[in-house]
C-alpha cells in the first residue's frame, strides 16, 4: 500500500473515525454528521443508525431514571457553546446508554464540547468529545489516582459536591452555616443545584425535593416574579441586589424576602447564586408598628384640643393635629417646618416662643391659664400646657396641648363683671339706704329730746315705733350685706379648736347676762376649717338656741359631736319653742322666719349664713324640732 504524503490526499474522515478517543461531530442543528469508531463502540451504536439523526433522538434520557438530566445538561452545554462560540467542559455526567435490546445501561461521562469556526467566526461544527468514566465505578483497590477520581465522581455527582471540590472549604462552611437562605441554580435550566439549610427551612422543603427542580416548579416563585427577576438581572448586568419579593413555601404560606442574585462561573459553567433574607418577621413588626402608629394617630387627630409638637432646637412645628389646624386656620402642611413667627404677629410669637424656651430650659411643665392667640377666626383664648420631651438626657421636643377656652372665658369675664356690679351695688345699698334711715332715726330722737314736753305718751310711742323700725331696717341691710359677702369670701382653713370657740362663746354670752340657760357641752374636736367662719356658725346657732329657749322654765342648751363615716356631725339642741316641721324646708332661706318679730326678734338671715358657711366647708346642715319641745340643729364637716 502506497504511503500517502500529500496533504490533500489525507482522508480526514477515516482518520477521525479511527481516532482512539470518543468523538462525535455535530452540525449547529445538533444533527450527528460524524463519529469515531471508539465513540460508536462505547455508546453501543452503529454508524448507519446515528448518522443524519438528531443527537437527542439517538441519545434520549433513561426513562427508568427519574433523576436523569443528561439531555438537559448536554443541551445546556451545547447551547452555551453555540452561543458563546467557545468550548465548554461539562461536569461528570450520568448519561445512560440504550443497549440494542432497548435496556439502558448506567454510564458516566466526562464531556467536552468545542465549536469549529469558519473564517467568519461562525460555528460550522461542534466537536463533542467524551471519556467514558463508568469503569472507574467498578475499580476499588486500584491506584490512588483512580481512587481520587472515583471519589470525585461520587462527590461531584451531586450539586453541592461541586461546591465542595471547587471552592474553598471555609466558603462551603459559610454557605452551609449561613442563616441566610442560599441557593445555586443552573443558569440554563434554572434548576437548583444546591441549597443550604436555611433555604430548606425557609421554604419548608428538604434538599432532595429541591435539587433538580426549578423555583417555578416548586411553587416558590410564579411566572410574573420570574420574568421580573430576569428583567432586573438583565438591566443590571447579571446582578440583583435586595429585591423585595414575596415567595411561597411548601406549606402554602408566603414569606416576605429580600433577594440578591449573582451570576457566578465555575470552570465553563455558569450558575446563579441567590441569597434570600427572610423579612417576614420584620414585616410583621413593621405592620404592628404601623398599626400602633395609626392607632395613636387616630387618637391624636380626634382629640378636640389642639396638640402640637415642636423641635427643641428651632421650635418648628413637627406635628399639629386636626383641632390645631382648625383653630389656627392653616393645614398641617402649611404649618410643618415653620415657626410661630411665620403665622403670628411679632409680639404674640415672642410670647409663645419665650414660654417654649422657659419650658425647655427648666424641663418642667408650664401651665398657661389664659393665652391669647390671633387666628383666622379672630382673637381666641387658650388654656395651654407646654411639656418638654426629654430622651436620654436631651430635650428633644416641646409638646403643647391647648384647649380653646374663648367661650368659657367670655362667660367667666361676664360673671366677674356681674360680681363687680353686684359689689358696687352692695356698696351703694350699704351707703345710700342707710343714710336716710339714720336721718329718720336721728331726727326722731332729736324730736323726742327737744320736744318731749310737747308730746303726750301716744306721740312718744309713735316716735319710738319709727325709731325701732329704722333701726331694724339698718340691721336687715347689714345682715344682707354680710350674707352676700360670704359668697365670694375664700376659706382660710386651719386647725380650728371648736371646744375653745364654744367655751369662749358661752363665756361671752354669760358675761353679758344675755341668758339664764344651762349648757351641756360634749368634748369637741379640732377640725380643719376657717375659724372665723366656724365661730360665726356657732354664734348663730347657740344664739338661736338661747333665744328660742329663753321663755322656757329651765333653758338647757346641749352641744354634741359624733363621728359618722368621713364626717363630724355636730348638734346644737335646746328645749325651747321648737318649730313646725312642715316648714323645715324654708328654715335656711334668706329672710325666712318661722316666728313673728313680736315673739322672737330676728332678721331671718342667721341660718342662711350658717348654711352658706357649712356648704363652703363641704358639709351639710339640717334640723329637727317639735313644737314647744325644742329644736336640734345639725351640721356636718368632713374630716379632711
Amino acid at each position, binding site marked *: 500500500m502506497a504511503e500517502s504524503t500529500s496533504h490533500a490526499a489525507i482522508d480526514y474522515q477515516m482518520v477521525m473515525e479511527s481516532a482512539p478517543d470518543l468523538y462525535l461531530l455535530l452540525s449547529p442543528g445538533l444533527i450527528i454528521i460524524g463519529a469515531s469508531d471508539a465513540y460508536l463502540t462505547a455508546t453501543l451504536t452503529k454508524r448507519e443508525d446515528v448518522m443524519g439523526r438528531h443527537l437527542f433522538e439517538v441519545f434520549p434520557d433513561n426513562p427508568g431514571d427519574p433523576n436523569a438530566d443528561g439531555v438537559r445538561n448536554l443541551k445546556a452545554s451545547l447551547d452555551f457553546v453555540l452561543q458563546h462560540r467557545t468550548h465548554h467542559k461539562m461536569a461528570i455526567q450520568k448519561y445512560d446508554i440504550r443497549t440494542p435490546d432497548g435496556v439502558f445501561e448506567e454510564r458516566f461521562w466526562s464531556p467536552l464540547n468545542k465549536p469549529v469556526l469558519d473564517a467568519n467566526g461562525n460555528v460550522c461544527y461542534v466537536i463533542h468529545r467524551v471519556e467514558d468514566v463508568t469503569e472507574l465505578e467498578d475499580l476499588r483497590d486500584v491506584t490512588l489516582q483512580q481512587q481520587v477520581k472515583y471519589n470525585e465522581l461520587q462527590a461531584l455527582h451531586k450539586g453541592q459536591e461541586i461546591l465542595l471540590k471547587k471552592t474553598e472549604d471555609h466558603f462551603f462552611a459559610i454557605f452551609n452555616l449561613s442563616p441566610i437562605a442560599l441557593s445555586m441554580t443552573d443558569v440554563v435550566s434554572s434548576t437548583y443545584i444546591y441549597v443550604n439549610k436555611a433555604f430548606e427551612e425557609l421554604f419548608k422543603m428538604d434538599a432532595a425535593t429541591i435539587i433538580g427542580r426549578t423555583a417555578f416548579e416548586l411553587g416558590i416563585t410564579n411566572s410574573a416574579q420570574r420574568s421580573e427577576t430576569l428583567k432586573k438581572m438583565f438591566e443590571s448586568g447579571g446582578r440583583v441586589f435586595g429585591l423585595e419579593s414575596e415567595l411561597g413555601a411548601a406549606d402554602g404560606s408566603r414569606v416576605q424576602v429580600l433577594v440578591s442574585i449573582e451570576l457566578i462561573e465555575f470552570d465553563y459553567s455558569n450558575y446563579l447564586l441567590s441569597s434570600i433574607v427572610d423579612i417576614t418577621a420584620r414585616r410583621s413588626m413593621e405592620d404592628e408598628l404601623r398599626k400602633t402608629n395609626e392607632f395613636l394617630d387616630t387618637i391624636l387627630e380626634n382629640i378636640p384640643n389642639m396638640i402640637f409638637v415642636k423641635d427643641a432646637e428651632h421650635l418648628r412645628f413637627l406635628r399639629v393635629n386636626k383641632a390645631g389646624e382648625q383653630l389656627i386656620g392653616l393645614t398641617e402642611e402649611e404649618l410643618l417646618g415653620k415657626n410661630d413667627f411665620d403665622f403670628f404677629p411679632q409680639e404674640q410669637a415672642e410670647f409663645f416662643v419665650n414660654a417654649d424656651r422657659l419650658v425647655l430650659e427648666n424641663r418642667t411643665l408650664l401651665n398657661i391659664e389664659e393665652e391669647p392667640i390671633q387666628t383666622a377666626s379672630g382673637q381666641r383664648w387658650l388654656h395651654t400646657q407646654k411639656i418638654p420631651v426629654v430622651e436620654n438626657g436631651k430635650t428633644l421636643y416641646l409638646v403643647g396641648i391647648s384647649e380653646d377656652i374663648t367661650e368659657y372665658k367670655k362667660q367667666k369675664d361676664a360673671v366677674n363683671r356681674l360680681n363687680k356690679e353686684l359689689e358696687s351695688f352692695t*356698696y351703694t345699698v350699704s*351707703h345710700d339706704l*342707710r*343714710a336716710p334711715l*339714720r*336721718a329718720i*332715726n*336721728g331726727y326722731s330722737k332729736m324730736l323726742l329730746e327737744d320736744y318731749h314736753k310737747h308730746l303726750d305718751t301716744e306721740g312718744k310711742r309713735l316716735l319710738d315705733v319709727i325709731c325701732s323700725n329704722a333701726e331694724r331696717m339698718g340691721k336687715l341691710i347689714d345682715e344682707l*350685706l354680710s350674707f352676700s359677702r360670704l359668697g365670694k369670701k375664700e376659706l382660710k382653713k386651719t386647725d380650728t379648736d371648736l371646744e375653745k370657740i364654744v367655751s369662749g362663746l358661752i363665756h361671752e354670752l354669760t358675761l353679758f347676762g344675755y341668758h339664764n340657760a344651762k349648757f351641756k357641752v360634749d368634748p369637741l374636736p379640732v377640725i380643719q376649717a376657717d375659724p372665723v367662719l366656724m365661730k360665726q356658725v356657732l354664734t348663730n346657732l347657740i344664739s338661736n338656741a338661747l333665744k328660742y329657749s329663753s321663755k322656757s322654765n329651765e333653758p338647757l342648751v346641749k352641744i354634741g359631736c359624733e363621728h359618722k363615716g368621713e364626717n363630724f356631725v355636730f348638734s346644737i339642741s335646746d328645749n325651747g319653742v321648737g318649730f313646725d316641721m312642715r316648714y323645715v324646708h324654708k328654715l335656711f332661706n334668706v329672710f325666712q322666719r318661722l316666728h313673728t318679730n313680736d315673739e322672737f326678734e330676728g332678721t331671718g338671715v342667721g341660718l342662711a349664713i350658717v348654711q352658706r358657711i357649712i356648704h363652703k366647708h363641704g358639709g351639710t346642715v339640717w334640723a329637727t324640732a317639735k313644737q314647744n319641745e325644742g329644736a336640734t340643729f345639725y351640721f356636718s364637716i368632713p374630716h379632711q
Partner: protein
Amino acid sequence: MKQHLAEIEILLVEDSPYDAELTIRALRKSNLVNNIVHLTDGAEALDFIFGEGEYSGRDINNRPKLVLLDLKMPKVNGIEVLSRLKAHDHTKLIPVVVLTSSNEDPDVVACYELGVNSYIVKPVDFEGFTKAVGELGLYWVVLNQSPIR
C-alpha cells in the same frame, strides 16, 4: 372771705346736711368742742386747709385739731382729700378720722393705706352714733397730744 379767727378744733367735711347736723349735735352734747367748721364738699375742704380759692388769705397755720371726713362726697371725695392732706408736709400730721356708712366699705382699707388715724361707722341708731362721735372727740381733741403744738 370767711374768717375763722378762733382756734379751729374740728373741721367736719360732710355733704349730707342731716348727717352733719347729727354729728355736730353729738359733738356739742359731749361739751368738749367749741369751734366746729362744717364744709360740704372735698374741694372746699382743700381750699380751706391750703388757703386757696374762696379761702385765699386764710391763716393756714390755724390748723384744725381734727378732720372728720366723710368718704362719699360729690366732686372731690374723701379719699382724695385724705391723700392730699397726708402727702403735704404742712398737713400730714393733722389727725384725720373718716366717717363711713358701712363696716364693709372697701375704701376704709384704702384710707388706712393712706395713713388715716381712725374711722367710725355712722350707725343707724342715734344713741350709738352720739356715743361714737362723743368718744372720738374726747380722744382726738382733748386727750391726744398732737406733735404740731
